[in-house]
């Protein structure tokens, strides 16, 4: 059973192979993403993050999920030597680089709670895959051609029990900044796809490694359990040394 809904202005896609899946499970996962949007969307003036950015909430009164996100963001900032940072150049917080992957990871737990074993959950190109697809094989995930937004594929990967996230230019109609260099916009590389043990890990490191520019591929190479495929503005892809096990 497969269903797509637009939440957080992005397509949220759930595809479950297990025969005993129910609509109730789907509804619970979609409702979870609506909850996430209400809390973390910087586009919603009543969201908790918008209130925080207006100075209306002190840190000790943040909700548990918000405290969790800030804590994970700080830890990620340290691991990535500052290249992952939810604080924007204007001083406001935008945790979307952390929330998307983290929320998918929590949503996957909902399906697992019901005993689902073969499925994927995706939000706008960030995907966690579990078990096998409808043909009984590893999930086939394509990497989108960053130069043609008509969903051309430039690489086909075969994945199971992994998270895959792609950071690239023109995300959210804006840019990914290099937090080490004021408001320099990343232009040298156009796409960084990271495969990790789950989508939370893949997403945070995709965001951080993209901000590092061309050096990002070396960062992922240095991490155990992660592989990456980086595409530069000349259309040349560089991959980590273990990436070939996925295609």
């Amino acid at each position, binding site marked *: 059973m497969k269903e797509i809904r*637009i939440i957080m202005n992005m397509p949220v896609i759930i595809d479950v192979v297990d025969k005993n899946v129910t609509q109730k499970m789907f509804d619970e996962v979609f409702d979870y993403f609506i909850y996430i949007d209400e809390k973390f969307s910087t586009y919603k003036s009543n969201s908790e993050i918008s209130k925080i950015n207006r100075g209306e909430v002190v840190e000790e009164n943040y909700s548990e999920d918000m405290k969790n996100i800030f804590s994970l963001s700080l830890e990620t900032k340290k691991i990535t030597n500052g*290249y992952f940072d939810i604080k924007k150049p204007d001083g406001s917080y935008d945790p979307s680089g952390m929330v998307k992957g983290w929320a998918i990871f929590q949503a996957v737990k909902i399906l697992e709670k019901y005993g689902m074993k073969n499925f994927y959950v995706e939000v706008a190109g960030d995907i966690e895959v579990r078990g096998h697809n409808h043909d009984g094989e590893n999930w086939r995930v394509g990497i989108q051609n960053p130069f043609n937004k008509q969903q051309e594929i430039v690489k086909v990967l075969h994945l199971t029990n992994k998270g895959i996230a792609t950071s*690239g230019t023109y995300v959210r109609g804006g840019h990914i900044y290099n937090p080490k260099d004021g408001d320099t916009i990343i232009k040298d590389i156009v796409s960084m796809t990271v495969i990790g043990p789950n989508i939370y890990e893949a997403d945070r490191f995709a965001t951080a490694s993209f901000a590092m520019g061309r050096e990002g591929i*070396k960062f992922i190479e240095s991490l155990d359990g992660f592989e990456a495929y980086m595409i530069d503005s000349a259309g040349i892809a560089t991959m980590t040394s273990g990436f070939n096990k996925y295609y």
Partner: protein
Amino acid sequence: MSLFKKIFVSSCFIFGFIANVFYQRNSDIKVTSLAKDNFNLITKQDFKIEAFEDDDEEEGGVIGRQLVTKPITPSTSSAPVIPSVPIANIPQGKYRDGEYLGNAAVALYADEFLQVKAVISGGKISDVIFVQSPNKRPQSIRVASKAMPILKQEAISVQNENVDAVSGASYTSAAFVESLGVALAKARV
């Protein structure tokens, strides 16, 4: 202060200033690593600095600058035109089964369009398909980039295999949401 002392102090400043200029123009500069923990973001390198900008002297020391050459980019040098489309209200509620085409919404560059088709099954969105636009941007000239040691490189090429899902960074574009919104408005019961 006597005249002799004034001349002496002034000469020392002038001499020091000239010496600093010569020193900076001819030094090999070591850029130390920013590596922390178990990875190196920038490795130790020696740079021979060919030219400096004049404001370096004001900081009172030797400052290394890496000469950066901009790669030739395939895209035009102008910044992408981000359409000022308000975030579309995606209609919620029941949909009729069938396939519904969205509009060709302006995406990113003024000469590029993005169009989607919504597939409704059982009253729900079961798929969103990208429709090939007749106004595709021409493929740009590919310039070989500097090879990275050890890591494998390849020129990207379009694959025609079917896939279950796609990982990419373009779904958040306003054009995608706009085109899908139009498709869903047609599908609404």
